[in-house]
């Protein structure tokens, strides 16, 4: 599902806030709230600053920051992206 040539961008229509290394993101259309843990918040903040990272970039960041191996980092990043794309919080596009 996740390809090297894709990038991921935050849909700016979703209100969000970070507190104590956690993030809350609202989806007003579906009336839902989502929460990101410490690792998710780290990726989220990176995406706020660097508009359109790729899967590889995010995986690398996670692996270095939390000192986990590449495979584990990739699985976690894919889960993060998949869940947020499903909720229309992130959009996938060709790089």
């Amino acid at each position, binding site marked *: 599902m996740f390809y090297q040539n894709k990038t991921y961008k935050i849909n*700016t*229509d979703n209100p969000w806030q970070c*507190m104590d290394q956690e993030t809350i993101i609202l989806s007003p259309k579906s009336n*839902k709230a989502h*929460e*990101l843990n410490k690792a998710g918040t780290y*990726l989220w903040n990176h995406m706020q600053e660097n508009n359109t990272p790729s899967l590889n970039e995010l995986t690398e960041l996670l692996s270095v920051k939390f000192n986990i191996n590449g495979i584990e980092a990739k699985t976690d990043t894919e*889960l993060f992206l998949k869940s947020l794309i499903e909720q229309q*919080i992130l959009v996938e596009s060709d790089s």
Partner: protein
Amino acid sequence: MATPQNLDILNKWRLKSSASWIPLQASLELTNRCNERCQHCYIPSFKDDPKKVLSLHDWYLVLDKLKKAGTLYIVLMGGEAMLSPFFWDILKYSHSKGFHTSMITNGMKIKTQETADKLRNFGIKQMSFSLYSLKPHVHDFLTRVKGSHQKTIKAIELCQNAGLEVGVNALLTNANIDDIFDLEDWCIEKNIVFKADPTITPKLDGNLDPLKLRASKEQLLYFFRARTKKFPKSKPKPETYIESTHVCNAGKGKCAITAYGDLIPCIEIREAFGNLVTEDFSEIWKKESMNKWRNILNQDLKGIDPKSKSSNFCEHCPGISNNECNDPLQPTQFQKDLAQVKASL
């Protein structure tokens, strides 16, 4: 890493913000100016001091600081927020910063479908309209502007057409109490979130004129009995009286910013602790003097009998008490009556 859940998450964040003094919600009074002259209105003067009003850049700074302070919800109000020359820019910026931006409005400036669509496109998430009755003469009597009823109703329709989430806030007064059920039925039919609140506050400078519109205890009893009969789920729920519980969230999980950039604990408490344009949020927020508002506990209130049933229904507001009786710890007679009425149902 992302778990979609709902109320649990929101409640957790509300509790966290309140406990850690993070202002999850901030109300912005964009201007004191207004195009209505409501009899009940708490605003003492509908003028802006040109020497003190904020520039657009100042408002951007305020929003930047609130984002950093932890705010998620921004409520645009006034006066009438749409009379601010910067309304659209502020809305757009607030949306771009990732705030959930809503507005409390009389809707008088929303005259065309383009305006309603623009509100949606600029990112407004929720519109709360102040509508007092379905009878034009009752609404216009309260707003003191002839034709205002028609304009507010039209604005509601336009915003619904634009696909916006719409609510109605009806202040319950002795002039519209007989019309409230028709208004509520109309809202239900139109899928509009309806709120009716009988608490009328004095003007923010202590002038008591608005209180003449408060419903009497008998009217309140009639209203709550009839409403509970019609909508059993609306029956007021007790909140177990605990002595060590804070009476409100002011200066903890919420704050407000005046048209001049002053940071206050909430709309009702007008003591400015600093100016958000010239000072850091955290510097103002941690000032010792703010604690007298944020640390008020149930046990500090005067004349409350913890064993009485009505103590579980007391919704004390230190700001209202301060404006009405010069004592933030003294529950007003109105609040006591309201609590007794609710407890009697």
